[in-house]
């Protein structure tokens, strides 16, 4: 699975999870649904419980959240991404 780099001009949000198992499970579920995500180091200011997080376009976030719910993948938070 190649990680497609997201375009800088888009608005992003960060999904945080309690454990990397959920990060990778979410990554898989979202990619399978055609949503572009990138695995990033969880931003310090968001005080993540696990070191990695998922980055995705704001415009995809609504669909992503409902997919996570559908797949029963618990999410800690969704925050805007400040690069």
């Amino acid at each position, binding site marked *: 699975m190649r990680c497609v780099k997201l375009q800088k001009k888009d608005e992003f949000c960060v999904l945080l999870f309690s454990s990397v198992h959920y990060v*990778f499970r979410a990554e898989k579920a979202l990619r399978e649904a055609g949503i572009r995500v990138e695995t990033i180091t969880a931003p310090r200011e968001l005080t993540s419980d696990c070191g990695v997080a998922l980055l995705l376009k704001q415009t995809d976030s609504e669909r992503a959240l409902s997919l996570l719910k559908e797949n029963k993948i618990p999410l800690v938070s969704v925050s805007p991404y400040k690069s």
Partner: protein
Amino acid sequence: MEIYLDNAATSHKKPKEVIEKVMEYLKETSCNPGRSAYPLAVKAGRLLFDIREKLASFFGVDEPTRLVFTRNATEAINLFLRGFLSPGSKVLTTSMEHNAVMRTLSALSEERNVRFEKIWGDGRGVLEPAQFREALRKEKYDLVVVNHMSNVSGTLAPLEEICSLCADMGVPVLVDVAQSAGTVLVKMPSEGDVAFAFTGHKSLMAIQGVGGLIFNNDSLGKRVKPLITGGTGSLSSKEVQPDFLPDKLESGTLPMPAIVALGAAIDFINSTGLGKMENHKRRLTRSLIKGLSEIEKVTLYGTKDERQVGVVSFTLKGMTTSEAGDKLSSAGVYCRVGLHCAPSAHRTLGTYPDGTIRFSVGYFNTEEDVRLAVDEVRKIAEKR
């Protein structure tokens, strides 16, 4: 000549796909999974996640976080027994258990006054569901521990019936699938509270260094306390152990090369077909039983029918097992003799304390191996 018939100890040789995947991992990834977000760490994290998912699904479990990696089956059994049993707990187990179970229960009986009773198999190592039904009716137990496949006689326990009885009675079950996983289909029951302890290096055909514990529901996993605590890559800001699976029970750097080997081994088994591999081992088992039974001085143990897979134990009249083992070894037939870390199982078969000569076949053994090994036994028997 070199004929390896000690696959119940560890499978030999390993599939070339397994070796190649480990080499590839060591050359190209070789990184700690899930702790960081640089590409190599993410790659390792994804790899670990995929393998966990694949392995859970191999056991019929659709929630991969219910699979906890350990070093081997022994550690998985220790993790469960030590993390689940409280002072005064009552355990029902069987005479066919490996010392991984027996010694841990004995230690817990000293340390925590855990009490345990054994259901005795018959002279062929057979356990009947009725024995469990009766024992569970008479007493209230906190746990049943059962070995799915004897490493001494190859006898399969009636696992489905035992798990279903225990589910009806509300008693959790720990199943030692060290020998059966990769030999026969080992499917997790959906009813009741069941945990499987497995090891990667035997019939699952991976390399030494990885095993695991897998639960059929989250609440059973939550009831197990960790054997060791430490870093998990999660909840790093907190100095207490996370309470979610698998992190709660999986501290420290994982043996990734062995886990990668196990992932590749599951791919190998899935693409070859577990049924095909089982049939091959069953054919070799039948040939061994037939060949050995034609030698006058041989006494065979076990059911000698479809309840016996992969393992054939026997003794030679007028010769100790150690003497036979040395002679076979000199002739290039590699097997294990003695008590196989399961003294009660030998008491059950009536072969304690000298034990047996154990031939155990693997997927890479052939009919020719069996024929040659039987010939060597015949020569040794007839020289006497």
